């Protein structure tokens, strides 16, 4: 509708969408920013503070006395607290009890006759009349205003993990047929349930709905047992790609059938009739009329199914195994987390790495969610 473009309410639409988008992306934005932050900062300051210059309290440790140099008869250890990251120091201290005792530029007398001077730019000097001793460097507490700082380290770490490329391919090998096969099977079934007459149709539809609810976890053990038996019978491994495709197919089918049937039932009857008069068999009608016209529904479902199979870990682990040759991307990334979990910097980065492929799929398929696919076909209500 071209006319709506000019509607005076358009700006309201823009604003509401903007609001909703902000609301929805806020959490993800947090994730994204967090994934770009230093891992130690994640736990101590809100992600939104990373966007602005912030004042932070920090501790740095000067190099150990081994690195002292003798200058003008004094022993000096020098360095920079900010290590080139920019920012400005306002206060510093040397005791955990008084971390901001001194203003930048002042000189603090340390307990053992040394003195510490910290400049606003972060450079410091520890000066002593005598040679400094000990193995540990001096801790320097400071308060600094630091500009936003981001790092790609987290991504680097994730992407450089061994076997990640292999897992990527594994994931694709799992996800693509696991998306296409159920769509194909479901589309045929949906057509039969929407446009063919046979006894028990309504019951079947209800059964499909009912099966939507079957918890995946319930199915795993009986199915794996079945797989093991079949595998043993055929003398092949129980954990094959074929197996996982079929498993995903089975689990994805109810939703696929349900969604597709609903969509197909809404197509104008006259088109089907017309094709029937043209001599098309059910198979022809399905392939040449229904499938092309159902693209929006197929695309929507493809997006979801791809997403689920791509992000799935449980089914993959159970039916494909955890060996290096079979490990899918999600599995690989989870393994990176270490056995105690909770490396959020890894989690955040890998969440974004896994998100990329589904988003591409979404973008690619989104254009099939087109308007007016049926335009011009029939007239009337």
């Amino acid at each position, binding site marked *: 509708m071209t006319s709506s473009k000019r509607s005076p309410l358009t700006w309201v639409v823009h604003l509401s969408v903007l609001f909703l988008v902000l609301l*929805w992306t806020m959490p993800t934005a947090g994730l994204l920013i967090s994934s770009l932050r230093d891992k130690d900062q994640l736990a101590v*300051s809100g992600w939104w503070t990373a966007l602005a210059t912030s004042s932070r309290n920090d501790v740095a440790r000067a190099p150990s006395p081994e690195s002292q140099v003798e200058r003008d008869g004094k022993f000096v250890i020098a360095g920079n607290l900010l290590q080139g990251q920019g920012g400005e120091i306002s206060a510093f201290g040397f005791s955990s009890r008084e971390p901001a005792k001194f203003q930048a530029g002042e000189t603090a007398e340390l307990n053992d006759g040394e003195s510490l001077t910290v400049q606003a730019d972060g450079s410091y000097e520890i000066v002593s009349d005598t040679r400094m001793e000990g193995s540990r460097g001096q801790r320097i507490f400071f308060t600094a205003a630091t500009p936003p700082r981001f790092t790609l380290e987290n991504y680097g770490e994730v992407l450089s993990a061994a076997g990640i490329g292999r897992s990527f391919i594994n994931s694709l090998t799992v996800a693509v047929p696991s998306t296409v096969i159920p769509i194909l099977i479901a589309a*045929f079934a949906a057509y039969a349930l929407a446009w063919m007459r046979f006894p028990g149709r309504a019951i079947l539809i209800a059964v499909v709905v009912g099966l939507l609810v079957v918890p995946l976890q319930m*199915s795993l053990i009986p199915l794996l047992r079945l797989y093991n038996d079949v595998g043993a019978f055929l003398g092949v491994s129980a954990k094959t790609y074929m197996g996982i495709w*079929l498993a995903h197919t089975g689990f994805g*089918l109810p939703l696929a059938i349900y969604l597709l049937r609903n969509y197909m039932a809404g197509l104008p009857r006259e088109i089907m009739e017309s094709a029937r008069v043209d001599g098309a068999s059910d198979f022809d009608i399905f392939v040449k009329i229904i499938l092309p016209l159902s693209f929006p529904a197929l695309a929507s479902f493809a997006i979801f199914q791809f997403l689920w199979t791509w992000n799935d870990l449980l089914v993959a682990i159970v039916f494909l195994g955890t060996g290096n040759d079979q490990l899918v991307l999600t599995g690989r990334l989870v393994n990176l987390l270490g056995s105690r979990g909770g490396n959020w910097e890894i989690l955040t980065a890998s969440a974004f790495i896994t998100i990329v492929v589904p988003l591409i799929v979404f973008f690619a398929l989104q254009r099939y969610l087109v308007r007016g696919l049926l335009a011009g076909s029939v007239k009337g209500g």
Partner: protein
Amino acid sequence: MQLIAAIATMIAGVLACAAYFWATNFILDLIFPSKGLSGPAASRNLRITNTIRPWLFLAPALFALTIYLIYPVIQSVWLSLHDRAGQNFVGLRNYVWMVNDGEFRQSIFNNFLWLLVVPALSTFFGLIIAALTDRIWWGNIAKTLIFMPMAISFVGAAVIWKFIYDYRAAGSEQIGLLNALVVAFGGEPQAWITLPFWNNFFLMVILIWIQTGFAMVILSAALRGIPEETLEAAVIDGANGWQIFFKIMVPQIWGTIAVVWTTITILVLKVFDIVLAMTNGQWQSQVLANLMFDWMFRGGGDFGRGASIAVIIMVLVIPIMIWNIRNAAKETGGH
């Protein structure tokens, strides 16, 4: 190398599937030809093929559904009548236990809360967003952004929401967005997910946040199927945006809205990842699916009780099934 093998298997798998449909149809027509034949023979063959063909179309789906879903359902029912190892028959004892279990009752109550809130709000937001984004030039970008939560794995989602609900003591810096906002407006920070009853809603927000993308995509496809002329007619009838939306568009996609609603409702019955990751049912936020998971796998698992909870989850879906049968019947009347 694997890449080639992978692609080859992929193609083979998909082709095999397509070949099945083509071949069975071909064979059916070969056995019961109707072309060329005439008279009663042809029409008898036709009748036969017409009764067989729907089942040919359905066969692979029915096969997969039976193996992957119906068979496990039967297994579950069987297991639910057995003890923890699935070895000794115990009758209905698991169900008796369940009814008397406080946690189970808590879960049922929470599940109903979820069922009331999540499908409604997800569908509502999905619909609004689908409709609004269709009218603006950056709609696709907006959609992608709102879809994003769907693409994030549950682990990722859990981290994200940790950064929202995180609680630090009053006075110290809040790293949870919600508390930061509350504090900024002069409120007291709260440990959101530990507030009994209310924490259910904080968990629901997460699922809504994820499922809105689902609703949006499906409804968007449906909205685009609405004949544009009817919208034009409404414009001419003087309807404004709201009226067109609620009186013309929504009623026309009512069927799809029902489908989305049903799907999300069922998903809510199954929801457990979120609860598991955020609270694991503590602070009175337990839900059925998580309870089932708990009994199934934790500490070696009690298959009997786990299965009996699963059976309850499946029973809960029966009203939805009946409702769908009705709908399908109504539709057939229209055809």
